[in-house]
Structure formats: structure tokens, C-alpha cells
């Protein structure tokens, strides 16, 4: 048995079979949630935005044209939902890493440490660069899809990814070095967590 392609399901949703959206929700809620949570660091907001994406799909379902790759279409909606949200609530734009779920223990302590370093390096990138890496690496969008999503040329996408990766490498180095220095100075400092008022 083969799974129905996203595009066929979306056409059914468009033609009135709203319940088929549930299948698409199951396929996309986790990737979308991760796209948002890695971009904003805020779980609650990320869940809200995922709901908003599906509400918009229902709302604009008539604008879905056969032949449009569904993945690219849904990410277009996802980007717009986020942009609209931050237009409404500009103060919330900052990354809020304390809201992130704790890193799950992985096989080795070293791997876990590297994951943590990488997450922190990613947070240091500008949002634009973080986004392009997430789209390309986690959401597995093709370069061509990213180009149409961001409204730029294919070559620009390649250049931007290259620059983002370069920044990531630098940030990773800085953090890793800082960590080594800290280790040399003091064994372990408690992690302070701020609290909202």
C-alpha cells in the first residue's frame, strides 16, 4: 500500500473533504513545530503558529492549485504566519532559549555536548541565516523550493547557505573556545535562569 501524496490529499481538502487535513496535520505538525521552535526558541508560540498554519490552509484552501508542491506551499504559509505574528507582536522577536525543551540524552556525553554547542551556535546566527539553514537541513526543502519561498534566485540561495554555514562555523568556534576557557578557570558555574514578571 502506498501513501497518498500530500498534493492529492490537499486537493481533496480543497474540494471539501476537510477530514483529510488530519493526515496532513500528522505529517507536518512535527516538522513545522521544529522549524518554529528552533527559530524562536518558544514552544508555546511554536504550537500556536502550527495551529495558525492549518487554520490558514482551511481558509485559503481554494487558492491551492493542482501541481503546486504541497511542501513548498505549506512552508510559504508557515513563513507568512510567523512574519504576521511578529508584525503584530514585535517585542517577542528575540530568541528565547530558556523556553527550549531540554536536550535529550544521546548515546555519548560528547555527542550531547556537541549538540548543545551547535544549538547555541545556531542561536547566535541572524534569524535570516538560521532560517535558511533550518529550511535546507531540517525541512529538507530543495534549493529551488527555497528560492521561490524567499523570492530570490537559485544562486542567491546557494550563496546565502554558504554564508550562513560560515557564520555557524565561526560561532561554533567562539563558543567552543569560550567553554574551554571557562573550564580552565572554574569547574562549573550554575546556570542562571531569569524569570518573567
Amino acid at each position: 500500500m502506498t501513501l497518498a501524496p500530500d498534493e492529492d490529499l490537499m486537493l481533496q481538502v480543497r474540494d471539501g473533504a476537510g477530514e483529510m487535513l488530519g493526515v496532513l496535520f500528522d505529517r507536518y505538525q512535527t516538522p513545522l513545530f521544529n522549524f518554529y521552535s528552533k527559530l524562536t526558541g518558544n514552544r508555546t508560540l511554536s504550537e500556536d503558529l502550527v495551529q495558525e498554519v492549518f487554520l490558514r490552509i482551511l481558509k485559503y484552501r481554494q487558492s491551492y492549485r493542482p501541481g503546486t508542491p504541497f511542501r513548498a506551499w505549506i512552508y510559504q504559509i508557515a513563513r507568512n504566519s510567523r512574519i504576521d505574528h511578529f508584525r503584530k507582536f514585535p517585542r517577542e522577536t528575540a530568541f528565547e532559549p530558556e523556553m527550549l525543551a531540554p536536550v535529550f540524552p544521546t548515546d555519548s556525553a560528547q555527542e550531547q555536548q556537541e549538540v548543545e554547542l551547535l544549538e547555541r551556535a545556531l542561536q547566535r546566527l541572524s534569524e535570516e541565516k538560521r532560517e535558511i539553514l533550518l529550511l535546507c537541513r531540517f525541512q529538507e526543502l530543495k534549493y529551488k523550493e527555497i528560492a521561490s519561498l524567499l523570492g530570490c534566485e537559485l544562486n542567491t540561495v546557494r550563496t546565502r547557505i554558504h554564508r550562513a554555514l560560515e557564520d555557524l562555523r565561526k560561532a561554533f568556534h567562539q563558543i567552543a573556545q569560550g567553554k574551554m576557557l571557562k573550564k580552565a578557570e572554574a569547574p562549573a558555574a550554575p546556570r542562571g535562569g531569569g524569570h518573567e514578571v
Partner: protein
Amino acid sequence: MKCEQIAELFREYLEESLNPDQRRDVEAHLKECANCSEEVVLWQKLSLLPVEQPSPRSRARFEAMLQAYQAGRSDQPGSSPEWNKRPASWNFVEWLRSPLGTLAYGVALLVIGLLAGLRVGSPKGSPSQELADMRSQLASMKQLVVLSMLQQQSAGARLEGVTWSTRDQQLDPKVLSALLHTLRYDPSVDVRLAALDALGRHSSQPQVRTTVVNALQDQQSPLMQVALIDQLVEWHEREAAPNLEKLRQSPNVNPTVRQHADWAIGKLN
């Protein structure tokens, strides 16, 4: 080849979809260029980042949204071509948000009430069954309205949703669980406070008590913490003592909250 050109091929390189010539070029460059070989390693490591799972509530919220939409659709003329030409009018949830929608909903309730009254008043037929049906339809309608309001972007609308939920003595399980979710996760403190207030009336439900006790650990806002403590003291909830103790000892807690927790511990013992 330049670094930039090489970096463009990382993805295909790692997916092993390059042709042999390109592959040879990339490998030769990586041997010579430390930066690029670090970048390719980072690129690979990005896949190690953990995939986070959204909370299970997310699916339920989606279901409620879909149900509200489908309930709205059954009131519409159906999928006629005309229907397609009026994309703005089909969305029931959207429509309910507007003042007009609220008004229309009120009028609908009034009409249902009047009809039910007439039925009861009329001598013939067996009204009790129909009345019961109408009541249950009305209840599920209200439940839909509350659920959809609790999911609105605007904090004001969500606040209104919480207020709506307090109109019934008996809470529907779905509304209850939506309120509990609001209490824990709503981004606005005001909405969370209102949810706590609404839930205060349903202390007989064990879920409500447990969630409020646990919320002591999650909520960071001092306002919220104080309100939770007050509620727990009002219920004489002894189960809360360990969490109150934890809160009191937490290094980041606001001094007023700490004092309040002290007072509550005294009250509960």
C-alpha cells in the same frame, strides 16, 4: 574550485548524489581547506539536533478547530460554485470572532430558547425528548464556541472564551481540558489568571486540582504564582505542600511570592 563553489555541493556530496568528477573535486578541496572540511562536518552534525515533539494537546486543538470549521460548513449552502466565489463567508470560526458573529450567535440562542419555550408551552406532542435534544445541541454549540475562542490569536478573544466557559455549571470534558491547557500554556498572564479563576469553581474535579498543584512548578510570573497559592489555600489542598516548599526554596523566586508561600505552608499545616 573556490570555497563557495565547494560549499554549494555539500548537500549533494553528503547525499552521495554527485557525479564522480564533482565528488573527486570536493574531496580534493576538503583535504586542503580546513574551513571547508569543518563546515562539511557541521553540516552533517546539524542532523544530530534533537527533533522536539509538540505537546499531545496540539492534535486535540487541531481537531477542535476542524470540527468548528466543519460545523460551520454544514450551515453553508454546500460546495456549489457560488460557494467558491465567496471565500470570506464560509469561515465559521473567523465569522464568530466578529462582533456581528457574536450578535448573530446570541440571536440564534434566543430563537432556540423561544422555540423550546413554545414547544414546552404547547399542549400536543411529547416535548421532553425534543427539548432534551435541543439542550444537548445547544450545549455542543456552546462548547464549540468556547473551544474556538480559546484558540484565537488575540488575548482579548481568549479571555472572552474563558469567560464564556464559566456560564455553565457543568463543564464539558473537552472545554475542561482546553481550560487546563490555557492555564498552563497561554502566553498572556491575564488569560492564565482568568482560566485559574474559571477552574476555581471546579475543584471537585481531581484533574483540576492536580494541574493547579503542578502549575506551581511551571509558572514563572509572580502574579500567577500568588494567584495559584491563594487558590490552593482556598481549597485547603494539602498535596500542594511539597511544591510550595520547592517554590519557597527556589533561588529565583520573587521575595513577595516567597513570603506568600511561607504563609500558605503555615495555613495548610
